[in-house]
């Protein structure tokens, strides 16, 4: 029998501490949409997505109401479209992007992920064409998200792709400069990309996934912070325990919502992504958790250690609460989507180098960071290479989502609005790595890859 205290705790978490299900993402395989004629492909893609996801939003809204738990985003991820493009005679990737946009609009989802290519070891048919089409695709669509995997622990880092992605990010920002450079905010460059990630912009439906699947991403930085605020005198063992217990509760809710959605939609349940995903809303910040643990400001010495503990405790608490854990699973540190990170970056306490260190102990990577518009493509590529190296050597996912603010410099701001938030332009070390980037080739896989 549940008691009144537990009931009120749950209600307080939802009502006052921003507890929510961040996303229910339906993964749909497009492998059976392959055809040599691109118009046929687009027709098949539209039909399949709108058939499979027609009840996604409606079902989630029903669950939201009956269980009383907000589900913020309903989204779709699809097979990396470069794989579909490979079979087409005319490799006009933008056509596919426009089809994805139309399908997303029909289904009522706010983002569709999977305008992606996996090129960690090299380029197959369709990969280069897709990557070259990313700037235009992100400019002519609103809902389409793109990602490119350029490295992995098993394969090393494809430095030709790294070079290409630096140029792609810059071009994408230029094409959308009249819209706050929104293009690259929907583009993620991965190392060790997970194939079942429900979070945007990096979600895609991996080749090893079933035909259709439901993945859930939970949230709840506000809940963790509130729990810590009520328990001021704990030592760090106690703090870690408290985070674990809170993460357990949050994840249980994700598991419940995921299994309910999967039952009602008649689609297998994939994974719960146990991530602390912040939003720009006050009280929903990962940086504020670190500050609650005892740092005057996120970015101060000690930030990496505190984040390492937080990330580990979230996983330990979440893993028992769910039958299948996957995706990114950890604490996110996107700058423009986190009120505490924004403040820390504005006052200069948090810089890109510190963020890079933080990404070696938490999930994802250099996320939603606004950089000066005059940053060169080579510098962006080199930042991607550094971040990918951290992922490759530590057998973890790392990602880069940088937004060059065209025409702006340090001290100014970019406003994206909504969940993407806003961010101050952060200084970048501009010493040229051009020769290193222009060498091309592959960084060989590290010793860590030889596990057999």
């Amino acid at each position, binding site marked *: 029998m549940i008691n*009144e205290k537990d009931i009120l705790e749950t209600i307080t978490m939802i009502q006052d501490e921003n507890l929510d299900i961040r996303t229910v993402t339906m993964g749909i395989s497009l492998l059976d949409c392959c055809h040599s004629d691109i118009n046929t492909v687009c027709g098949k893609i539209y039909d399949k997505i709108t058939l499979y996801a027609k009840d996604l939003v409606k079902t989630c809204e029903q669950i939201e109401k009956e269980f009383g*738990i907000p589900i913020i985003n309903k989204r779709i991820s699809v097979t990396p479209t470069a794989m579909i493009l490979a079979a087409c005679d005319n490799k006009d990737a933008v056509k596919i992007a426009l089809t994805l946009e139309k399908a997303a609009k029909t289904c009522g989802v706010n983002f569709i992920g999977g305008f992606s290519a996996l090129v960690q070891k090299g380029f197959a048919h369709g990969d280069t064409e897709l990557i070259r089409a990313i700037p235009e695709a992100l400019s002519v669509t609103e809902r389409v998200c793109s990602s490119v995997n350029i490295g992995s622990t098993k394969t090393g880092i494809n430095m030709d792709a790294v070079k290409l992605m630096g140029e792609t990010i810059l071009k994408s920002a230029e094409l959308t400069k009249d819209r706050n450079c929104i293009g690259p905010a929907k583009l993620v460059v991965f190392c060790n990309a997970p194939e079942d990630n429900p979070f945007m912009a990096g979600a895609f439906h991996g080749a090893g996934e079933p035909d259709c699947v439901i993945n859930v991403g939970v949230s709840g930085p506000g809940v963790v912070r509130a729990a810590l605020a009520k328990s001021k005198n704990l030592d760090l063992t106690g703090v870690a325990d408290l985070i674990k217990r809170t993460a357990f509760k949050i994840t249980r809710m994700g598991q419940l919502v995921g299994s309910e959605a999967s039952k009602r939609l008649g689609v297998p349940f994939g994974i719960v992504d146990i991530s602390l995903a912040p939003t720009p809303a006050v009280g929903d910040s990962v940086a504020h958790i670190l500050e609650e643990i005892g740092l005057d400001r996120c970015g101060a010495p000690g930030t990496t250690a505190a984040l390492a503990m937080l990330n580990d405790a979230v996983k330990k608490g979440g893993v028992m609460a769910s039958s299948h854990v996957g995706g990114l699973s950890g604490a996110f540190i996107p700058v423009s989507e986190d009120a505490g990170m924004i403040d820390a970056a504005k006052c200069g306490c948090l810089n890109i180098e510190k963020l890079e260190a933080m990404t070696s102990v938490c999930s994802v990577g250099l996320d939603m960071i606004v950089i000066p518009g005059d940053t060169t493509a080579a510098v962006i590529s080199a930042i991607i290479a550094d971040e990918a190296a951290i992922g490759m050597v530590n057998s973890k996912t790392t990602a880069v989502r940088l937004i060059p603010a065209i025409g702006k410099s340090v001290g100014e701001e970019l406003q994206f609005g909504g969940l993407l938030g806003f961010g101050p332009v952060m200084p970048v070390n501009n010493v040229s790595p051009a020769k290193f980037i222009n060498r091309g080739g592959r960084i060989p896989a590290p010793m860590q890859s030889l596990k057999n």
Partner: protein
Amino acid sequence: MRAVISVIGRDTVGILAAVSAKCAQYNINVTDVTQSVLQDMFVMVMMTDISKINADFSKFVDEMTELGKEKNLSIRAMHEEIFNAMHTI
């Protein structure tokens, strides 16, 4: 199937009666009621059996939210499973 109705806000006359009347209208059986005052707030938690409900549960949820607005209270009706999932292993 059971649902939890929670009422939080300033104590006023007739809250219990109003919520119970709505339950009766939907053929929902109230099985347990607890009331307390928490930090000057009136808190009432009702356990209910919704297995014989005569309409869509989400419609009842809307009516409860509406009733809360009328009486300047926060009234929520939620499936019991969410609490079970969160608080029991």
